[in-house]
Every structure is written in structure tokens, then in C-alpha cells.
């Protein structure tokens, strides 16, 4: 193994990427863990917002509908980088001032939590639209039939709407998840040590820019490939009982 690396001229890179201290591999993996943690949190938080947002947009009153329209329009119009800067610096300041005004003292907001909130709010706007479209694609007859059985709204949502719309929502949500994993890189701008910032620091300290950025690219690619496999299974599961589709990735 070492001989192969030596002959390929990769011995230096292998040493730089090794997991124990002279190498920076452990730092990259720690960054990846932080990135994934934020991506999971933000995606989940975004789904919560999206579900309520989609229901609000479809069935809410005039005020709720208008507020949600403002939310999705503004968030989708402003670049994510700008939103992150606004929400991170201004958001934490506002929270602290509110908490101090209420006499609770300073609240410490960890980088992970701030990242989840910021990206979650961004993701929420997009998933609102994805889920709204999916709910509208459910044949109205199924929902009417459930109402005819006298199902209360929450049971209707749980038993009919969500299972029926899941197959329409999965491709859009898979896209959103992949965007979430890569949006975590934007948090490097606020000094949060996720994969991109760890990579930049390792590259700048060792001057091995090519090695580290390639390694980071490979890690993002692995995440994407694994997610692809998982979402293919989810899609298959959510479409169970329906005729199979060509081109739906297995």
C-alpha cells in the first residue's frame, strides 16, 4: 500500500490527510460531522416550517396566507449568503437584547444552533412550496372521501394527505436536502468550523491547497451519493402500491 502511494507520488498527500495529528484528516471529518449535523437540523426544521406553511397557504385565512406569501417571497428573493449574514449577526443580537430586557441575562447561542435556525428558515420557504405543490397533486376525491367518513382534520392529514402526497414531494425534498448539505458551506463566512472552513484552514496552514480541496470535494460527493441511495429507497417506499415509473432512479 505504502509502495503504491510512493510510486504515485501521493505519499505526501496521504500523510497530510491521515487521521492522527501530523495529518489533518480528523479536522476534516470533524468539519463534516458539523456540516451534517447542521444539514440534518436545518432540513428537519425546514420540513416543520414547510408543512405548516403549506397548510397555511392552502387552508389558512387571508392574513395567514398573505404573511406566508411575504415569507416565501422574501426568503427566496434574497441570496442565502446575505440572509445568513443578517440572521447570524442581527438575529443573535436581537435575541440577546430581548432576553436581557426580560431579565434572563445573556443567552449563549452556539454556532450549530444558529446555523440550524438560519438555514432552517431558508429551507422552510422552499419546502413550503414543494409541499404545497405535492398536497395539491393529491386527487381531491381522496380527501373528500376522508371527510365523508367524518375524519377530523389532523387525522385526515396523518392518514390521507401526508401518505398520498409523499410520493409527489420526495423528488423536491431530495433536492432540498442536497442543497442543505451544500449550504452549510456558506456558514464558513461567519467563522463556523464546518467542512469548508476546516478545509481552508488546513490548506492555508500546510499550503497543500489542491490536496485538501480535492479531499473536501470527495467528502461532499460521498454525502451526495449516500443521500441519493437513501432517497431512492424512500421514493420507492412512498410509491408502494402505485405503478412503477420509468426514469425514477431504480
Amino acid at each position: 500500500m505504502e509502495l503504491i502511494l510512493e510510486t504515485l507520488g501521493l505519499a505526501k498527500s496521504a500523510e497530510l490527510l491521515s487521521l492522527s495529528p501530523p495529518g489533518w484528516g480528523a479536522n476534516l471529518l470533524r468539519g463534516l460531522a458539523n456540516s451534517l449535523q447542521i444539514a440534518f437540523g436545518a432540513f428537519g426544521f425546514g420540513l416543520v416550517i414547510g408543512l405548516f406553511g403549506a397548510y397555511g397557504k392552502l387552508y389558512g385565512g387571508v392574513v395567514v396566507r398573505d404573511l406566508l406569501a411575504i415569507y416565501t417571497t422574501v426568503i427566496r428573493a434574497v441570496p442565502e449568503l446575505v440572509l445568513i449574514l443578517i440572521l447570524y449577526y442581527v438575529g443573535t443580537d436581537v435575541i440577546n437584547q430581548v432576553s436581557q430586557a426580560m431579565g434572563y441575562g445573556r443567552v449563549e447561542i452556539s454556532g450549530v444552533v444558529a446555523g440550524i435556525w438560519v438555514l432552517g428558515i431558508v429551507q422552510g420557504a422552499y419546502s413550503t412550496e414543494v409541499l404545497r405543490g405535492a398536497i395539491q397533486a393529491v386527487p381531491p376525491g381522496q380527501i373528500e372521501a376522508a371527510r365523508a367518513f367524518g375524519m377530523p382534520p389532523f387525522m385526515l392529514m396523518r392518514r390521507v394527505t401526508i401518505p398520498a402526497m409523499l410520493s409527489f414531494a420526495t423528488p423536491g425534498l431530495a433536492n432540498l436536502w442536497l442543497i442543505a448539505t451544500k449550504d452549510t458551506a456558506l456558514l464558513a463566512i461567519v467563522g463556523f468550523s464546518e467542512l469548508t472552513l476546516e478545509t481552508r484552514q488546513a490548506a492555508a496552514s500546510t499550503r497543500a491547497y489542491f490536496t485538501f480541496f480535492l479531499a473536501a470535494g470527495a467528502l461532499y460527493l460521498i454525502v451526495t451519493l449516500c443521500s441519493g441511495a437513501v432517497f431512492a429507497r424512500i421514493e420507492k417506499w412512498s410509491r408502494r402500491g402505485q405503478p412503477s415509473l420509468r426514469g425514477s432512479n431504480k
Partner: protein
Amino acid sequence: MELKKILVATLATTLLGAGVASAEQVKIGIAAEPYPPFTSLNSSGTWIGWEVDIINAVCAAGKLDCVVTPVAWDGIIASLNGQQIDAIMSSMSITEERMKTIDFSDAYYNTPAVIVADKSMDIAPTPESLAGKIVGVQASTIHQAYANAHFADVAEIRVYQTQDEANQDLVAGRVDAIQADSIAMAGFVESDNGSCCEIKGIVAKDEAILGKGVGAGVRKGEDALREKLNAGIAAILENGTHAEITSQYFTSSIFHE
């Protein structure tokens, strides 16, 4: 049901993540970028360097419980005012411009600004000599302010997010010269990476822009913390700790005037 589990887990992490800060811990912000020999990250993920040692010494002498907190240099004053950190000790010069938004402790080091360029180039640190050249500086630094005030009429100023990026572009020949701190540059031109280049000289004095040395930045009105930092800085200058730490990293004193 899967969805419900995800919802509960997410809500739990988001809500429980924010806790009330322990009252006495002081977060000292440094720029999350390698700036040797002042601050740099080693491969085991800890911050080392002259400034990290000075932070620890000042805090010990000032009886403060400090944690070094890396944040983005670009937003370091925003982080301070947004209460994510309590003080900045990241080679930040005391300037009138910054005094409008934050307060500073006494200086704990003071070094001149220099121009660095390729050895083969005939460049002096004057506007006449830099005419038509491209000068690289780091964003939101005194060097950027100085270059804009003195060189922008005749030269092109190129701004970088980190000093390291400016150094790399000098090595790659994308800029003709860079302006930066003399100590950081002394370290850079001695390294293998910076062997192409040499220090061409100190730029003309302009105290209004270049400031009165490097101090610790604190939020306006936080006089108690500022006094403690001042006491710590005075104590380590007095008892020789400052000189001792300096001798581990530099060959000469870095406290001028």
C-alpha cells in the same frame, strides 16, 4: 410517523441548544484564519502562537476566565457587538475609525506597516514607486485603509478576505506588492513559501489611519472588563512575561514607542 419523529428530534435540538451563558467566562475572539506567528491552528485543532500565549497570560494576570473563540475576521466587530464574543484580541490596531464603534484596552504590541514585493522588483514604499502597480491588502484592516488613502490614486488596490490569500497571490504573481504588518511579513518572507519576496520598507507614518498599536477591543461602555484587561497587560509588561513569550517567537522586541 417517521415525519413525526423527525419533527420531535429537530425541535428538541433547536430548542435545547441555546442555554444561558456561564456568567464569568470571557470569550476572547480571534480571527478564524492562520496568521502566523500570532495565531494559527495546528493539526490537532488547537490555536497556538504568540497572541494566544499573550491572551492566556493577560487573562491569568487580570484574573479572568477566558476562552479563545475563533470567529470570522470580516464580522469580528459585529460578533463583539452581537455578544457572541466579549473581547477581540486578534492583532487589531487601535484606530479612530474603530473607536467610533468599540472601545480599546491599552496596546500590547505595536509594529510598523511594510510593503513586500518580489526580490527582483525595484519597489519602494512610496506612492510614486507604486504607480501603476497592483497592491494586495486584507479587507477591514488598517492596511486597506492606508492603501486606499495613499496609494489608490496611482495604484490598483486588490482586497483579500485573509492575509494568507494576499500572500498566496503575491507568490503567484497576481499582485505586484502587498502591504501588511512588519512582523507577520518578516515571518512570511523567511518561510519557504515566501522566499520569492522581501520587505521593501516601512510606509510613511499616518497615525490617524495606522493607529497607536494593537489593543484588545471591547464593547462600548464595558469599562470593568477593559480595566481588567488593562491591568493584565500592565502586569505582564511589568513582570517580564510579555518579553518572555516574545522571545519564544521573535528575535527582537515587538513593542515600539
